[in-house]
Structure formats: C-alpha cells, structure tokens
C-alpha cells in the first residue's frame, strides 16, 4: 500500500505503524459520571467496518507525524490522508464553537 503523505508525498506503508481506529482521538471526559463505561467503550469496542475505515497511522520511519488515513478494508485502497494534528485542531475548534 502507498500512503500519500500530505507533506512528503507518496510513501510505502512499510514506513508506518498502525495504531487503529481514528475514534481513538475522541478521548472521553474522565470527570464525567459515566467515565468508567465511556473509557471501556473507547478502549475496547470497535466499529470494524468492511469498507471505508478511518485509522491512525504513525510515520515511524519518516517524519514521525501522525496521519489519519481513510482506507477501504476490502480493497486496501487508500482514499484520503490527513494530518492527525489538523483533524484534532478542527475537532477542538468545533468543541469551542459549541
């Protein structure tokens, strides 16, 4: 698989390690009343779709950036690559706006 890095261009997936589902960015509020259950769901449960899947990849052998790669789990086609920092910043500003 070739991952088209937003800064470095096309790179072999061998340079990366996968952490997993990008929902791991949505860390629950540890002070909420249901934090125990929320962290169980966050840590252990997965959607695991057959088709488009957003996932966190780490460019370990490259620039050490975290990427969010949208990839088809049936064909292995890479559909979209974003910097995780950009996505996280977008999520944070979305929260502030609320």
């Amino acid at each position, binding site marked *: *698989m070739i991952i088209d890095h937003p800064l470095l261009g096309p790179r*072999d*997936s*061998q340079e990366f*390690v*996968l952490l*997993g*589902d990008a929902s791991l960015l949505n860390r629950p509020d540890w002070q909420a009343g249901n934090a125990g*259950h929320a962290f*169980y*769901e966050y*840590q*252990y*449960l*997965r*959607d*695991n*779709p*057959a088709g488009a*899947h957003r*996932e966190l990849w780490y460019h370990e052998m490259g620039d050490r950036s975290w990427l969010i790669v949208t*990839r088809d*789990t*049936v*064909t*292995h086609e890479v559909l979209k690559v974003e910097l995780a920092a950009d996505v996280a910043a977008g999520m944070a500003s979305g929260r502030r706006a609320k």
Partner: protein
Amino acid sequence: MGLNGGYSGFRILREGLSGNRGWRPAWRDPSPQPAYDFVIVGGGGHGLATAYYLASQFGEASVAVLEKGWIGGGNVGRNTTIIRSNYLLDGNQPFYEFSLKLWEGLEQDFNYNAMVSQRGVYNVYHSDAQRDAYRRRGNAMILHGADAELLDAAQLRAECPFLNFDNARLPVMGALVQRRGGTVRHDAVAWGYARGADRRGVDIIQNCEVTGFRIQNGRCTGVETSRGFIAARKVGCAVAGSSSRVMQAAGMRLPIESHVLQAFVSEGLKPIIPGVITYGGGHFYISQSDKGGLVFGGDIDMYNSYAQRGNLPVVEDVCEGGMTLMPMIGRARMVRMWGGIMDMSMDGSPIIDRTHIDGLYFNGGWCYGGFKATPASGWCFAHLLATDTPHETATAYRMDRFERGYMIDEKGSGAQPNQH
C-alpha cells in the same frame, strides 16, 4: 451408524472390488425448515463442530447450520493446520488441553480420517531469559495436565540438525517441545464434522446468508436469511473473521478488529522438517505437509482488512524469519500464498458467551488460534447453547471481561489487537 454408511478399511476394499459405485455424498443438501431449536450461523470448523456436539453429546435433534457460501470455505481451509496446547494462563491452558484431547480421539469419534499427526511442536529459544520463560510455560502446561519437555541445544540438534545454531545475534539454544502437538488435515476437519453432524440429523444449509436477526422484546426469535426467515429457539454465531459484520445486524459492537494473516506453501520436498517449528526471535512457524510442501506463516499484516490477501512487506518479513532460523529453506520455491481474516480480540483470547439479547449466543475472537481450538470451541459452544451454562474449561471467555478487567492477555501487550 451401521457399517453400511461408515468408512473403514473393509469398506474401501469392498468398494474397490465393485467399481466404487457404492459411495454416496457425505452429507445431504436439505432445504431449510421453517423452524429449528438451534440455528448455528457459520458453516466453518467451529460452527460444524458446535452442531456435531449438540447432536452427539447433548442429544439435540433440531439443529441447522447456515453457511453463506460452501462449508469449510473460510478459515478452516486457510490456516497452517497446527494443533497444540502450549499456553501459560489459567483461562486458556485447560481449554486448549481439552481441545488437544478431543483431537486425539476425533477420528474414531466422527469416523473420518482427519490425518491427525502428533509430530511435536518445537518452540525454539535464543536467550537465557527466553529459556526461563519457556520453562515456566512448560511447567504451567504440566501442572494443567499437558505435556512439555525442555530441550537444550545438543538435544535439539539431534532432532533438528538444520537449525541455525551458531547465529551470532540469535543463537539457537534449545526448544520447548510439546510432543502431543502436531498437524491435522484441515479440510477433513470440516468435512468430518459436517458428515458426522449430518448423520445425526443436523441440516447443513449452504448458500444461505444470514442478513439479520429477528429480535422482539430483547429476545432473538430467529434469523432473516437469503432463503427466508428461519425461526429458532436459540441462535449461535460462529463466524470468526466476520463477527463484527454479522453481530452489527444485532446492534452489537465487539471488542474485535478484523486483520489479514498470510500463509505460504513451498513446492513439495522430501521429508526434512520433523514437526512444527516456531522461531523465538521473530514470528515464524513452519511444518511440512504429508505431500511435502513446507507450510509456514508469521505475523498478521497489522492493519484492519477484510481482503483475503495481504501485502509484500509481511511476506518479506516472514521469509526473513525463516531464513534466519533455517537457512536451508532458501533454495525452496514458494508456490502458493493466501490470506485469511482473523477476529483479533483486544486481549488475544476468544469469546464464547451469551449476548445481552436472550437466545443469541456468540463464539468468536479467535485471533490466529482458531484452528487448534476447533473441537473444544464446538464442544463448549454446544454446552453453552444446550445448558445455558459455560463449560468448565471456557468460563473465562466472557464477553464482559474487558469492562470488568479480567483480560486473558497471553502476550501481555494490552488492548492492541494487532499486537496479539
């Protein structure tokens, strides 16, 4: 079972003398009935074994196995055929030892030649620390009634002289061997269970895809299929690899990711590898089939996948592991490689449990240990379905162990399914 339909040496002789005209299909091809007591979703090794033991051990007569494609077309036909019970943890070892004992009597039990071959499983170690860890594991195995034997380099050299003993980085210092482990003809396991179940009245319904569950007031009353609704008192899902997809139809999210695991076969060679050999310095395991092909594999590809094929980096990684452990295989040519889809659970151990929906039961999360578990998985799942209580060797395989903090993490690598 009378002599007439059974398989035996006498039968082969008789059929041979009469032109082999007396053989019949090994199982029927029935149309689905409107209702069963038990519907098993998934006609793989585990589903067929579940149906077989429901009929043979628990006296259940009204059982159907629903299979989307043809039976045995999934992971039971795509593995590296290894059986063993060399586990460390209390939650695992008794279960896998139960499975190995069932393997030992399986062929007589279901009257089918599954070519169970207890040729030994060697786990090679490369450091003092690894030897100590293997010694501990061997002791745990012995305490649970299994067999284990620790070999030093000289003893191992006598049995496997071709290993790379003098490797500078990872010298071969010995091995933990389980003599009762070995290999089995994997397709014959599916066929043997299917035939045995069919002869006991189980309906094996192929080309019948389950598309949904009918759930009323928190109770599962049957399954929607590509061949219409089938009512059931209890529904058991044994669809490892596709567990998340199937259980999603019942509104469930599972502690499972699907990953692809590749396996490889070389051209046929004269007998050179005595048992199953696993590398302790990386991830590589190898045996030699009765046809002579070297059957080997290594790590999963490490990313979520439902494609039954992998990528080149892992192929290279597996072959490098093999070359480091036994350089002699470098001249062999690889003829086939394929991938299978694994239910990678969050602690590397399986689930055999009820769900929060009455009448719906789940068997999955086998990571890449599913094949060796087939008999015990079927027996324990049948036990759960028939009695609503877990079998004594499968009490730890609960769905809620992640929330309650009772993980069975054989590798100690945490909630990282691609690390197990």
